[in-house]
């Protein structure tokens, strides 16, 4: 879906300047609080007027300061999931879900009510009022409501930030299911690198109103210069892999990465053949000059240093090639004692239990 977004907005000393194309799939807008993420989303949806710029989505110009076009919010066909659920208290769950469903996005068939209700697990809640729902249930209804309004693009503004970790874990897979079921162009705003690593196809980094980078998520996460913006302490590598072997006695899985590398994690038999997205945090990677023997760590990769730079407070950030790109963070002291430099051969060690599934 063609989209072209160029926006400028100033509030006092804060200047937002963004320019990107929202690709098909899920584009994550990532940045710390105060980066201007919500402001950008509000400008897209027509809730805040940009100072200047241009918004074109699916070939339709929604805003153009040059041409004097400013399509009002209710005609933009942009579904919005807010940080707070914003459900209408006087409507039932069903009434909330169908509130916007009269809208049609061009010739596309309307989104199926039954399918959305089914995926989001709302069947039993349809006749309830929002006041009687839990926080997670409310946010599920809010997500369903936005999708059922048949938007051309779905904007989710930190939809999980008001929920506790258990509720987040419950809703994240549902968002994944919706993504694969409806293939909606989605702009997902978050300041949680975990959520983003799990959901995003494209990553857009925003910091203090400035766009730092935009591109496929695995590329961006592997860029050392972007580590301060893309996760900082929690920064790491994203790996797409396929489960090839299951070892029943130990619940061990062997995974093959896109570039042919092998990885070990724990899991279940039914995952054989399925794709998984893994995240290895840079701080969970240890380095060794020689291949270590008699050690508990299962994932031992032979590779070399591609690049390195100094990180925060005595840390050194490294990008390795171990059959796939891998970022690692070690102390400057270790880095110097090992006399590492570009092209140094090195073994990277990753405990299977530290690898998180995205």
């Amino acid at each position, binding site marked *: 879906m063609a989209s072209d977004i160029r926006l400028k907005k100033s509030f006092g000393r804060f200047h937002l300047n963004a320019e990107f194309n929202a690709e098909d799939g899920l584009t994550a807008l990532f940045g710390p609080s105060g980066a201007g993420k919500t402001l950008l989303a509000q400008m897209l*949806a027509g*809730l805040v007027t940009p100072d200047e710029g241009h918004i074109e989505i699916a070939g339709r110009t929604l805003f153009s300061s040059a041409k004097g076009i400013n399509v*009002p*919010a*209710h*005609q*933009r*066909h*942009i*579904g*919005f999931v*807010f940080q*707070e659920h*914003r459900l*209408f*208290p*006087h409507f039932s769950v069903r009434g909330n879900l169908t*509130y*916007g469903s*009269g*809208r049609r996005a061009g010739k596309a068939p309307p989104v199926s009510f039954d399918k959305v209700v089914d995926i989001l697990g709302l069947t039993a809640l349809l006749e309830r*009022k*929002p*006041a*009687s729902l839990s926080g997670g249930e409310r946010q599920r209804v809010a997500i369903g*409501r*936005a999708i059922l*309004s048949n938007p051309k693009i779905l904007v989710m503004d930190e939809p999980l930030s008001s929920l506790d970790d258990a509720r987040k874990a419950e809703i994240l897979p549902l968002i994944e299911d919706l993504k694969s079921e409806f293939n909606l162009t989605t702009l997902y705003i978050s300041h949680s690198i975990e959520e983003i690593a799990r959901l995003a196809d494209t990553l857009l980094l925003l910091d203090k109103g400035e766009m730092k980078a935009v591109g496929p998520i695995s590329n961006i996460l592997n860029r050392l210069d972007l580590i301060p913006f893309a996760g900082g302490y929690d920064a790491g590598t994203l790996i797409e892999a396929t489960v090839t072997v299951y070892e029943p006695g130990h619940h061990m899985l062997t995974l093959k990465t896109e570039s042919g590398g092998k990885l070990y994690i724990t899991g279940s038999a039914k995952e054989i053949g399925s794709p998984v997205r893994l995240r290895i945090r840079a701080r969970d990677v240890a380095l060794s000059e020689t291949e270590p023997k008699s050690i508990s760590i299962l994932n031992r990769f032979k590779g070399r240093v591609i690049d390195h730079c100094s990180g925060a407070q005595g840390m050194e950030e490294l990008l390795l090639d171990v059959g796939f790109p891998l970022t690692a963070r070690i102390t400057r002291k270790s880095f110097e004692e090992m006399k590492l430099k570009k092209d140094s051969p090195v073994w990277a060690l990753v405990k299977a239990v530290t690898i998180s599934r995205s």
Partner: protein
Amino acid sequence: MSISPAELEVILLSLKVALWCVGISLLPALVMAWLLARREFYGKTALNVLVHLPIVLPPVVVGYFLLVLLGNRGPIGGWLLEYFGISLIFNWKGVVAATAVMAFPFITRAIRQAIEAVDRTLEVAALTLGRPPFMVFLTITLPLILPGILAGITLGFARALGEFGATITFVANIPGETQTLPLAIYTLLQTPNAETAVWRLVIISVVLAFAAIALSEWLTRRSVRRLGGGI
């Protein structure tokens, strides 16, 4: 206690006046409340003061202004007479006008507070779901301010039932025409040996007031329940 024809006439006139008063005030009060709650415009403060003036002015003064403005030779009254053939002087329509002016600020105030209490983020959400602003008002804002509107209606109704000063100044105290409950009580107080008759009208007034409040409470509870909250 059976109600005499004369008392019934007073009661019916009072109810008729109160219903008309609320009926003609409600929509303008809603618009005014919306303007004061949501819009910024030049002269807003002056308008706000003007609307609230009947609350702070002595009712007799309001009645005198009405006489000047709405009398058959007044700027508004003369116009009404010439183009619509409506005269407000010394008849029940004049009572409606007087009570409406006195009740308007109360109705406006109740609705305005309700509008100010509405979570506007809900309206924004409704816009993003593709409903145009007026539909958003009808489907979101209006249901949410319903308790406030009901409160405004009750206040306005009670104000109209109890209005005395502006009415007697503007349209005098004519039995069968402009004599509402308070005016009838006032007349009886001036009549020797009418204590029983006074008591009867006083009790009727109290009963009417209670009935109005009970009805409004019931309606409010119903609408609050519809909003999904409990009391």
